[in-house]
């Protein structure tokens, strides 16, 4: 790690000001990804603004009838929070599908959004990577790309966003609350992360110096019919090859409303509202789900080692929607299946 200075911020304004007053500063919440990247020399901040004394670790009702998750509440405290378990079990399930208990005890909600790709070449400072070093090239295109994206890719980058939590947040239409040098604002979850285009070094739409202070969940939590299906190379403690957050509002066997988001396939949680609209009014049957899966993967392409993901994603969508309809989930979800 490079040398750096460290300060504890005690108020949001102080944190924003402190970061702005240093040239290469970074915020640090749980630190589980940032410190790892600093050890690899991928991130080289000269000053860290410590956030864990800020009063942003609470989870409480918001004025819109939903729930506000503090940016510094840990992933574990969020997943096991009684209101999250009861009203947003899809989110609990997604969080608990990610990382390990130790990491979830440290990682914060804001930090989960800010974590960077686990692309092997992004981590390997001896190889070209447009995300790490703009203009140097992409080693994953034409390289080994088993974990890489199949949707929304560009000639510059085929990295994926690694989060599970964010896939559920996308499906639930969370809103990101931020504070910055020019005041406070909110960002719809779909607009928070971005596609790589020709600037893959920019992961999200935060403006310089902005700090995530919380996440607002809308009142509707789809707590009756949901599934977070995560497919990976091990049954635990591995990043998703493909994951699906599926949430349904059913009237009998008819779909009144559907939400569908994919992880492990793109530079951001992948949602397609056309697919969700097409599901409205349809019977919740395998045939309907297969059509949705085909539509969702339109335009998908593999890059060699990840070609399998296109078919895997289609089948995962069908299975997740079926699980959400029947609320019977697979053996690997047995631990997380205590919800109705």
């Amino acid at each position, binding site marked *: 790690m490079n040398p750096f200075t460290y300060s504890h911020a005690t108020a949001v304004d102080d944190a924003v000001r402190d970061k702005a007053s240093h040239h290469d500063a970074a915020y640090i919440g749980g630190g589980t990804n940032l410190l790892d990247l600093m050890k690899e020399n991928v991130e080289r901040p000269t000053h860290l603004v410590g956030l864990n004394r800020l009063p942003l670790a609470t989870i409480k009702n918001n004025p819109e009838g939903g729930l506000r998750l503090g940016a510094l509440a840990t992933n574990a405290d969020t997943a096991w929070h009684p209101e999250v378990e009861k009203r947003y079990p899809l989110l609990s399930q997604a969080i608990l599908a990610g990382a390990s*208990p130790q990491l979830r005890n440290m990682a914060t909600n804001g930090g989960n959004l800010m974590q960077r790709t686990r692309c092997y070449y992004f981590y390997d400072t001896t190889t070209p990577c447009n995300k790490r070093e703009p203009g140097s090239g992409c080693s994953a295109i034409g390289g080994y790309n088993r974990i890489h994206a199949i949707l929304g890719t560009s000639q510059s980058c085929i990295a994926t966003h690694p989060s599970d939590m964010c896939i559920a947040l996308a499906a639930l239409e969370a809103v990101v609350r931020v504070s910055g040098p020019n005041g406070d604002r909110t960002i719809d979850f779909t607009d928070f992360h971005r596609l790589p285009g020709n600037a893959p070094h920019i992961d999200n739409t935060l403006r310089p110096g902005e700090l995530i202070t919380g996440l607002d969940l809308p009142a509707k939590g789809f707590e009756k019919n949901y599934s977070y299906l995560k497919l990976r190379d091990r049954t*635990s403690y591995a990043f998703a090859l493909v994951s699906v957050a599926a949430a349904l509002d059913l009237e009998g066997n008819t779909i009144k409303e559907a939400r569908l988001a994919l992880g492990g396939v793109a530079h951001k949680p992948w949602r397609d509202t056309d697919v969700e609209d097409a599901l409205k009014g349809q019977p919740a049957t395998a045939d309907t789900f297969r059509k949705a899966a085909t539509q969702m993967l339109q335009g998908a392409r593999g890059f060699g080692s990840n070609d399998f993901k296109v078919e895997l994603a289609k089948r995962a969508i069908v299975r997740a929607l079926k699980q959400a309809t029947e609320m019977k989930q697979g053996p690997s979800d047995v631990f997380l299946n205590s919800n109705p």
Partner: protein
Amino acid sequence: MLLQLDGMSFQSTSFLVPMSYPSTTKRGVMGAPAAPPPASTVTLKINGVETRLQLAPWTSLLDALREYADLTGTKKGCDHGQCGACTVLVNGKRINSCLTLAVMQEGNEITTIEGLGTQEKLHPLQQAFIDHDAFQCGYCTPGQICSAVGLINEGKAHSEDEIRELMSGNLCRCGAYVGILNAVKEVVDGTKVKS
């Protein structure tokens, strides 16, 4: 070092920079700072004892414990949060001590393997690990035991599948998982398990 984990090479403590000078560090394109940040006093409460240490800001909690507080029970495995050998408890919750800075843990109650039992009276999990042959080389064991204490504090694991899932952050390269599972299960259940 004893272990080599898939996809992670063991790191020696070579990146530990003596506090007086950053000899092994390289600056990026931004150029070198005029002087390295000085070490400052960090007060950590470790196993109930207030401990004042002179630490550079980039000292991880793991290095603070091992190299500055002389508590070498906590092990450095991958140093990247993947293996769980460095697991300690902070305010009763298990974390990877390699992925947090010592300075971030001021004011918290840190418990390491040294704080769990005594030679005369082992912690029930320590005894259970012995009874169930839950280790071979023993390198992952302090992390396994601290993790299991955290698991029991959480109260979420009841079945074997749940214990396996919630112990998945601790790797054992010797493959003593059957014994580890039985040891943890015995303490979770409060009844004897046959190994």
